């Protein structure tokens, strides 16, 4: 099926958004999940609850909050303008911020579970062998939690690709700038061009199915916390 230039642009934009947002969500979600998994307490519970909020809030509501918060009259927007940055709404980076926030729960859930299941003992063992906490994290925790990281990455990527309500609100559906694949489908539906909408939807479904199959392959049942790779044997 040949893609029109508009479709190809939307696809490229979606993939770019997926990759950038997934990387940033992992970067942000890993320390957060680690911190959430390492203790108890009311504050930690509250932060954990806030981190799952994006699942509960309707996307257009989340998009509305972000639009107001990041807009010219919002607190975050005013700080931005003060620092001489361009405002985020209706730009690609606005989409990135929105996607990171709405994908965060899909990264925090599997990572936090994995870190909790790991327990403190492997790290204590590493410490007695003289590893610094960072070194221990990189060489002990990361390899053991690899399946959880893969799950988190694929979920974040798939979610960023399929997200509609938030990106419509914060992005403004501008061709080549913020019109991602899901918005292009919406445009086709509004035009009554269901054939084009079906074709792009099929593409989106195919990407999602392949993503999920990859997770299953890398992450077989009962091996959520697989054994450490035996590289040194």
């Amino acid at each position, binding site marked *: 099926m040949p893609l029109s230039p508009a479709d190809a642009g939307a696809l490229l934009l979606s993939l*770019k958004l997926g990759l950038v947002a997934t990387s940033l969500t992992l970067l942000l979600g890993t320390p957060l999940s680690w911190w959430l998994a390492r203790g108890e307490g009311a504050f930690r519970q509250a932060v954990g609850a806030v981190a799952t909020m994006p699942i509960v809030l309707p996307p257009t509501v989340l998009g509305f909050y972000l639009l107001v918060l990041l807009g010219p009259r919002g607190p975050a927007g005013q700080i931005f303008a003060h620092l001489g940055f361009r405002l985020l709404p209706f730009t690609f980076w606005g989409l990135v911020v929105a996607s990171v926030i709405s994908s965060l729960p899909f990264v925090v859930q599997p990572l936090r579970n994995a870190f909790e299941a790991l327990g403190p003992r492997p790290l204590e063992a590493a410490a007695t062998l003289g590893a610094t906490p960072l070194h221990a994290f990189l060489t002990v925790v990361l390899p053991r939690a690899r399946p959880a990281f893969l799950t988190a990455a694929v979920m974040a990527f798939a979610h960023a690709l399929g997200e509609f309500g938030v990106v*419509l609100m914060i992005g403004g559906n501008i061709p080549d700038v913020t019109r991602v694949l899901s918005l292009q489908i919406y445009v086709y539906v*509004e*035009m009554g061009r269901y054939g084009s909408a079906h074709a792009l939807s099929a593409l989106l479904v195919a990407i999602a199915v392949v993503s999920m199959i990859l997770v299953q392959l890398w992450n077989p049942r009962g091996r959520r916390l697989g054994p450490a790779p035996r590289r040194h044997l």
Partner: protein
Amino acid sequence: MRKLFLPLLALLLVTSPAALRAEDFQVAVAANFTSPATEIAAAFERETGDRPVLSFGSTGNFKTQIENGAPFAAFLSADAKTPGELEESGLAVPGTRFTYARGALVLWSATPGYVDGKGEVLRKGGFRFLAVANPDLAPYGFAGREVLERLGLLPGLESKIVTGNNITDTFQAVKTGNAELGFIAWSQVCKDGKLTEGSAYMVPADLYGPILQDAVLLKPGEGSGPARAFLEYVRDSPAAREIILSYGYELPAR
């Protein structure tokens, strides 16, 4: 995977979308006007060389976005109320508002012969669901309920009404046969002035208040010659007027 990831990311980052050219300007277009606006914009670009970059969405969403700094130079709304409000709140350029199209309401069924030319089917009943868009969100929904009220049928049919969030949802409920019939926009089932499929009753215009779609120049477009020219083109050019008519809208009296 890890080896691929970084080069891929770098590739995507350098292939940034093409920057908008200087004479490009952004226009927010109500979703129901997607097809005609696309055609009008193409005709305008052919004639002038300036490119309107169209965004499609719901009128309510656009209002929120414009209030929060959206870069749109012009707005083709699905109603008359929103452009008026934007004008009042100083977000639109005063005196630039005009009606570019009038919507026509039809009672439609995807089944040929189901809806008669006089709308008697509403009195006869015998259907499970009648789709009408949300009157608070969609002018066509408001008009549909107005028709039922004026015909004295609203109390009897209230329990059969399924409410679509917007006119596209409502159309889809009827198109898929989940509702036997519904009030939708003539523009949704009209091609070159003719009914494309199913059966329809053109509701007489005196049974509902006019469905006016207004356009307005927004503050970001105040200094833009091409944006002003585009609005003039929508209002006055024979090409635009013909496109609007061909999609099942009526033109405002001049």
